[in-house]
């Protein structure tokens, strides 16, 4: 579905040496999987994710998405191609001055969809993330979890094949994290969208990823399959903080 071949990226720094953020990384993301990339801060995870839709142009190597070599594309071809890859962010990056439906509508406007079809698609996407009742509100009145749902709806608007997630739950509380993860799992299962997720939260990876790659110091150091465990929190009634913390301490019954 998506593969990076010997991709490297470095940045100029104030001092004379260059910061090698990503070094000769080769990685293949299988179609239909949820692939986690985990590692400490500054390991180059976010840069790696941005190389996948060429928000960062690699210094070396090739980026191949759905059989097409993105590294060989012109700027305008690249813009077109990016529409088939959705992206969500830790800080949501919504337009604060547009309503919820206005935000979901943006990528459709960029794609030149006529107004009527746009309204229809916006409804579908908001329905999918369960925020149809908030359509005319502004992001400022939403909670963090709701903002991320809007961002997911926006990312899905153009029927992407891949969804890139940059620390999607890192600014959310544990319960909201579970909500967002179940939305993402839903996206993966019902729409067949391949998901790549960068995070430093171990239990997020454990909950939904089928494959994991470990990144340290700009290199991939490990990659393996994982059996995602269904957490009770995602299905049954959410546990209280008391229960969650005591379980962590291994005290079992509360």
């Amino acid at each position: 579905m998506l593969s990076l071949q010997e991709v490297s990226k470095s940045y100029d720094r104030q001092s004379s040496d260059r910061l090698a953020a990503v070094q000769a990384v080769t990685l293949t993301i299988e179609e239909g999987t949820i692939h986690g990339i985990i590692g400490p801060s500054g390991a180059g995870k976010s840069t790696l994710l941005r190389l996948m839709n060429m928000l960062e142009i690699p210094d070396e190597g090739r980026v191949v998405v759905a059989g097409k070599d993105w590294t060989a594309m012109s700027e305008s071809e690249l813009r077109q191609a990016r529409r088939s890859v959705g992206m969500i962010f830790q800080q949501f990056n919504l337009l604060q001055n547009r309503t919820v439906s206005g935000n979901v509508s943006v990528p459709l406007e960029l794609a030149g969809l006529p107004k009527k079809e746009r309204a229809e698609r916006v409804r579908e996407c908001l329905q999918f993330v369960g925020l149809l009742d908030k359509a005319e509100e502004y992001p400022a009145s939403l909670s963090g979890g709701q903002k991320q749902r809007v961002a997911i709806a926006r990312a899905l608007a153009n029927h992407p094949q891949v969804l890139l997630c940059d620390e999607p739950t890192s600014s959310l509380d544990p319960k909201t994290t579970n909500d967002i993860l179940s939305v993402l799992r839903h996206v993966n299962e019902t729409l067949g969208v391949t998901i790549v997720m960068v995070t430093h939260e171990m239990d997020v990876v454990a909950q939904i990823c089928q494959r994991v790659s470990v990144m340290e110091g700009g290199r991939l150091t490990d990659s393996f399959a994982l059996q995602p465990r269904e957490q009770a929190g995602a299905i049954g009634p959410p546990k209280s903080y008391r229960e969650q913390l005591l379980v962590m301490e291994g005290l079992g019954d509360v």
Partner: protein
Amino acid sequence: MFDISVMLDGMIQYEAEIRKAIGETFFMVGMSVVAAIIFGLPAGTLLFLCRKGQIYENRAWSWVLNSLVNIIRSFPFLLLVVFMIPLTRMIVGTAIGTLAASIPLSVVAIALYARQVEQALLDVPRGVIEAARAMGASKLEMIVKFLYVEARSGLVLGLTTSTISFISYSTVMGIVGGGGIGDFAIRYGYQRFETELMTGVIILMIVLVQAIQYAGTTISRLLDKRS
């Protein structure tokens, strides 16, 4: 002793002149506001986009634009008006009159507002541009559909501040026969020692500035959905 009735009598006596002067001020300030929007907005946008780390990052352009804006802003305004006379004559055929006076005023307006635009755009979170790029937006789309949308209340506030400066600048336009309310106050109030009349005009200007600021603040608040 200051006498309000003398002030009012004077203003009624010169009502026709005052009306004409206000009309001239509106014309000059109106022209410079239009110039600020048509040329200052793109100039300020370019000023922002050429900065380090922005989508048109370009040191040379950044330097040229910054220098131009700073040079225009550092001129004492009266000197700029005189200095620009040949250029004004080239553009409108004469250096005298209200239309001619609008030319140097517009030049300052463009430079002033460009700076305000740059500042307003700097307030837009970087993530917004990143989201725009990820969606495959073209550069023009990033500017119009993302940057301006998020910066719109700042753009309006900047224009308000600028407009009030333009009014202040316009008061010296008597030097090239531009007329306007400031010119009226100097000729009738100061040069003829009719202090009351001058005070009346100053009060008029205070009211005008208050009204513009109030309108600007209100519009900006209505446009701002960020909190």
